[in-house]
């Protein structure tokens, strides 16, 4: 089973996932990344500790798996941002927004 590392960035602070986890199914990897990002963002945004949460998922061999994933999913492996949530500015709507992909 391939191993995946979920590196977390909150604002400028990067927490690397050295250990990683094994997943047999890439759709589960995507789900795990979204759930991780959403629950970290919930805490970070409500406490005000960060306004940007990025979950950067990489497989052991750094392969980009984007093309293997279902249509419309912005999960890319191998250095691309998988899922990002930006805390909306107070004057804007209250929804969480995905940011533009960037490199870590």
């Amino acid at each position, binding site marked *: 089973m391939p191993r995946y590392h*979920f590196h977390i960035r909150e604002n400028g602070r990067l*927490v690397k996932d050295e250990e990683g986890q094994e997943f047999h199914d890439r759709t589960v990897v995507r789900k*795990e990344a979204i759930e*991780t990002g959403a629950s970290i963002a919930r805490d970070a945004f409500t406490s005000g500790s960060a306004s940007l949460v990025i979950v950067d998922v990489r497989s052991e061999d750094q392969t980009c798996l984007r093309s293997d994933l279902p249509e419309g999913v912005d999960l890319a492996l191998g250095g691309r941002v998988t899922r990002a949530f930006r805390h909306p500015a107070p004057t804007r709507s209250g929804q969480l927004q995905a940011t533009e992909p960037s490199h870590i």
Partner: protein
Amino acid sequence: MISKPTSDALLRRLQTTTGIDEHDVATIRALPIDIKTYEAGQTVVRDGERPTACCLLAEGFCIRSKTTWEGRRQILSIHIPGEIPDLQSLYLQVMDHDLVTLTECTLGFIPQVALKNMVRQRPNVAEVFWRDTLIDAARFREWIVNVGQRPAASRLAHIVVELRERLRVIGRGEGAQVEMPLTQEQIGEAMGITPIHANRIIRQLREDGVLEFHRGYVTVLNERNLEELAHFDGRYLHLSPSQ
């Protein structure tokens, strides 16, 4: 007949929470029991099974859990020595969750027939066990509040403080270290978050000088910080007979 070491934690807890006299102690200790050893990670009773005995956790740690159709496991409760996690199966015949060992465990299986006879013959002891299952339910209510409403760091801090309170009752929660044999993944399953988020919280608690997690136990780095984060109110544990 339940030996002294096997019944010690159970009797200590019941003595503290409910108050039992020497006749109650004698009645409980006279119960037949079959002692077995389990390795860590073994399922003792499975969801859907019909157990014929209730299991007294004499040594080690267990969890009760439920797994969704998708295979996601939610840990519902953590159990310490002296508890009878599946006492409900005495009257709820089919298990509606799993009972799983966290560590190597010594379990004592008490036949349900013997427990039912005891309950009928000794209403006092029946009341003691009834109260015990009500306290169990009160802990579940707090668990729901914890998982549903508290931010993740407070949630984990709350679990640690509760565990320490309960361990103290059986004489094991003194000092800065709290026995807590959960892996990062299991902490995630208890809190309803992914292992990565659990790892993030564990790190944060250490960096903020609150708790440090080790294999099998947690060190309290600063009592004041822990109190501020957990906002623990132990009323729901009903630790004295008058509560």
